[in-house]
């Protein structure tokens, strides 16, 4: 298994070569060759053509993620702690989940305009649920003996939440964040598809209009990179924070 990364890289190069050969026999409009796309990408980055779009989309994703996760976390805590709130709100939460949220995008653009606000809100709405769900269930199913321990120590409800339920639920909460990150990219891009003049999603729509397929691929690659970087960041945070929870395998 040691060389697995090497083989993975080898596979990547092989696929690129295959693509390059296939693209040789096709119109650039349908399938541009990797070399052409790479040229467009580097060119766009050097001239600064992509800069504004990258910043815009990243900002939408990050802001939406923070906003949605924060609300999801807070409501998740409230619903996890109070059975009354849980029963009161869960039909609404389920209903809001059943609505395909991307289908709401046109409405949000109508309400919040064509600039960043509408995209941030769409992204936030999509990130909200995984955090809510994971937070709610993680803090509800804490080991019973640990709860008894805290009762024995006369801990207040607040102390039990802060010192027991949230730390104990942290691995589950972070797993929710990992799901939310991936969804955030989708939210921001779809928002830009529907209404926007700036951002990588808008650029994809524009390149479609201009029949500039290499540009479209270059934007896709940039989006993939943004998604992967964010995912890795959450992964690193997860590894760091949940390290003590794992059984040590090597000494």
């Amino acid at each position, binding site marked *: 298994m040691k060389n697995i990364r090497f083989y993975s890289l080898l596979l990547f190069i092989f696929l690129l070569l295959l693509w390059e050969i296939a693209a040789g026999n096709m119109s650039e409009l349908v399938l541009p060759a990797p070399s052409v796309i790479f040229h467009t990408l580097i060119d766009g980055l050097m001239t600064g053509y992509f800069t504004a779009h990258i910043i815009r989309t990243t900002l939408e994703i990050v802001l939406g993620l923070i906003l949605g996760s924060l609300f999801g976390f807070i409501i998740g805590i409230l619903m996890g702690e109070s059975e009354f709130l849980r029963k009161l709100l869960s039909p609404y939460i389920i209903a809001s989940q059943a609505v395909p949220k991307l289908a709401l995008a046109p409405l949000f653009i109508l309400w919040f305009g064509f600039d960043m606000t509408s995209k941030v809100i769409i992204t936030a709405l999509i990130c909200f649920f995984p955090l809510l769900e994971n937070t709610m269930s993680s803090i509800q199913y804490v*080991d019973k003996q640990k709860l008894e321990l805290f009762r*024995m120590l006369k801990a207040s409800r607040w102390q039990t939440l802060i010192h027991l339920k949230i730390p104990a639920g942290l691995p589950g909460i972070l797993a929710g964040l990992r799901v939310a990150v991936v969804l955030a990219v989708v939210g921001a891009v779809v928002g830009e598809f529907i209404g926007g003049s700036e951002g990588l999603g808008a650029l994809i729509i524009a390149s479609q209009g201009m029949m500039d397929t290499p540009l479209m691929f270059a934007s896709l690659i940039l989006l993939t990179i943004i998604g992967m970087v964010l995912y890795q960041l959450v992964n690193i945070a997860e590894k760091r924070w949940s390290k003590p929870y794992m059984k*040590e395998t090597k000494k």
Partner: protein
Amino acid sequence: MEFLTIKDITYGYQGTSPVVDGVNLVIKKGEFHCLLGQSGCGKTTLLKLASGLLQPDKGSILLNGKGMTDPSYECGFVFQSPTLLEWKTVMDNVLLPVSLRRKLTEENREYATALLKMIGLSAYDNRYPTQLSGGQQSRVALARALIQKPSMLFLDEPFAALDAITREELQEDLLRICQLQNTTVLFITHDISEAVYLSDRVAVMDKGSIIYEEEVDLAKPRTMEMRYGSYFNDLCLTLRQTMSEGRS
């Protein structure tokens, strides 16, 4: 002088026969009391009632002359499993009861260090619980229960999951510490020789009632040899017979 008095307490769930049925128990100051019984006899419930985690349907519990309606800071509790917080270091786990009450002082830290030393874990204060063996985790749980210098200690089969040698070591540690601080102890177990070795007084519980009580007439401190003496084994046999008679 009586320290913990349990007066005629009954506890049960609706529609079934009571789990704890009219139990009376008196534990003197500094006494090590063992409660022996098979699983399902209600001993854990009795311990939870005695420590204030559960409220009895009938009867009363007095700790040092005062009625107990709630867990008390004067009591320490050790659960069946170590129940350590995985995200806190060994040191922070031991200090948890104090840190929930007020800001930690240098004195608290010194005492925690001393406790860790006493149980032979001084070098582990910065480790996390998942890095420790089962026996080490049980030791940390014991140190945590002792950090507030409780006058009363409740233990619910704390050593049941450990191997024989580790269990004996921990029994020694427990006896030594309790004698040092003159702690009153209510210890629950299903292991007959553990009960005899540890306690000043042993009671057998069955179907929610105490069916037998006996002083253990062995000198303190206890030694390894006592485990193989005739008095020790006779008492074990008597208790064993009482337990099986109770069943039938």
